[in-house]
């Protein structure tokens, strides 16, 4: 059959419009904004995903209010860590890819299909990763056929790993996971999972300087989303504020 297929990237390639970078030889020393802690955990009805808002450039805060957790499609969410500029573009391409497939084929990709495709996109970034421009996503969604929430973590070569309980990526990932290791229970409900997610982010921000914790005075709150049978939903800002202030209270 003729190309392009139902893939949007194939279409871009056939027109010579795919994202590409001409890189100089050797390792780059570019100072680019880096996006940091994002995490996700499953609960009985789906998944929760939380991301901080700060982009860091060397020792500087480049942006305080960037978004790192995105709606991939109606039943999935994607979060990013690593080189912000490239990662945001990767997310945009991923979103378009899923929507394009859905419209052409008349049906959504399976959750595993979406996760696999995202892995392929990360692998294609490998030459950039050798230049120090690393992008690592975190993917979570609601499996419409099995009626459960699932989440996937990735490594720099595009390896895809399904996590049963929780996952995190970015510079604060180690501390977030350390918190979740003790706080996670298999029978968490939505409010419990939201609380655990926000607390894990606050725990990471305590130790990792490149992660921006909630800043109630400035009104900077983490992005918190859920994906359940109802689809992708942003958690109400009021709810996030209460969770964040409670989490900060515990630390103090």
């Amino acid at each position, binding site marked *: 059959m003729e190309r392009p297929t139902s893939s949007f990237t194939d279409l871009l390639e056939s027109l010579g419009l795919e994202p590409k970078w001409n890189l100089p030889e050797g390792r780059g020393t570019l100072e680019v904004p880096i996006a940091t802690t994002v995490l996700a955990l499953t609960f009985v009805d789906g998944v929760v995903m939380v991301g901080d808002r700060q982009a860091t450039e060397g020792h500087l805060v480049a942006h305080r209010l960037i978004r790192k957790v995105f709606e991939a499609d109606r039943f999935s969410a994607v979060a990013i860590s690593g080189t912000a500029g490239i990662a945001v573009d990767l997310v945009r391409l991923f979103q*378009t890819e899923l929507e*394009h497939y859905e419209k052409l084929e008349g049906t959504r990709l399976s959750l595993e299909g979406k996760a696999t495709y995202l892995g392929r996109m990360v692998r294609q970034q490998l030459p950039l990763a050798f230049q120090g421009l690393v992008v690592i996503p975190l993917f979570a969604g609601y499996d419409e056929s099995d009626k459960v929430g699932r989440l996937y973590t990735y490594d720099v070569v595009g390896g895809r790993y399904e996590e049963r309980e929780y996952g995190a990526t970015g510079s604060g990932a180690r501390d977030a996971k350390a918190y979740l290791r003790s706080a996670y229970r298999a029978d968490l409900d939505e409010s419990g999972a939201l609380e655990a997610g926000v607390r894990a982010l606050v725990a990471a921000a305590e130790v990792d300087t490149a992660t921006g914790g909630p800043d109630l005075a400035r009104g900077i709150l983490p992005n918190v989303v859920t994906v359940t049978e109802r689809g992708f939903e942003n958690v109400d800002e009021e709810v996030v504020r209460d969770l964040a202030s409670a989490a900060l209270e515990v630390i103090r």
Partner: protein
Amino acid sequence: MSLPFYVPPEQLVKDRAEFARKGIARGRSIVAIEYDQGILILAENPSDTLHKISEIYDRVAFAGVGKFNEFESLRVAGTRNADLRGYLYSRSDVNAKTLANAFSQTLGNIFTHEVKPFEVEILVAELGINDVPNHLYRVTYDGTLSDERSVCAIGGQSEALDELLRGASFTPKPLETTIRRVAEVFGQVLDRDIDGWEAAVLDGTESRRTFRRLSDADVAAALS
């Protein structure tokens, strides 16, 4: 060397038009009509999987009558065009006018240059936003593009359907009333039982992707 027979261009166009019209007249009709919160598109379609109505973009829908493979290839091209534009520029830069124009160019070229014209008629609907009115475009087999107000019908019985639905004056009604009215007019015009409905809306209450298919149960509930 033998010269090909001379065929006057008038005759050529007439023959092709007649051929295409015959094919379309056999096709079942589709109606797009405004309701109080959006645009309803209703078609007679016995199949649950071979759709005649589809989503193109956030606020743009597509419907085609005639040969399935022909309007399907136009739909795919339209979706690619829209997604490409939305990805390279912004989601708000995708509109029905550009798409209808592209369909019109394609069909016009095929009509004059190819061995056989496409036996299709295309409808492109766009839901307005921020005081911009809704747009309904109709593209015929020879690439003729027309801009319709409030009601647009394509296919075999399009003229009769259009006339009855438009009536003396048109005011958008709630969705269920609109479905009932369209079904009634279909019954009147076709004078036989309907062989299954395919229905979709561009729903003005949605914020981003406004296209939604209505299930058989939704349509049955409105008609009962």
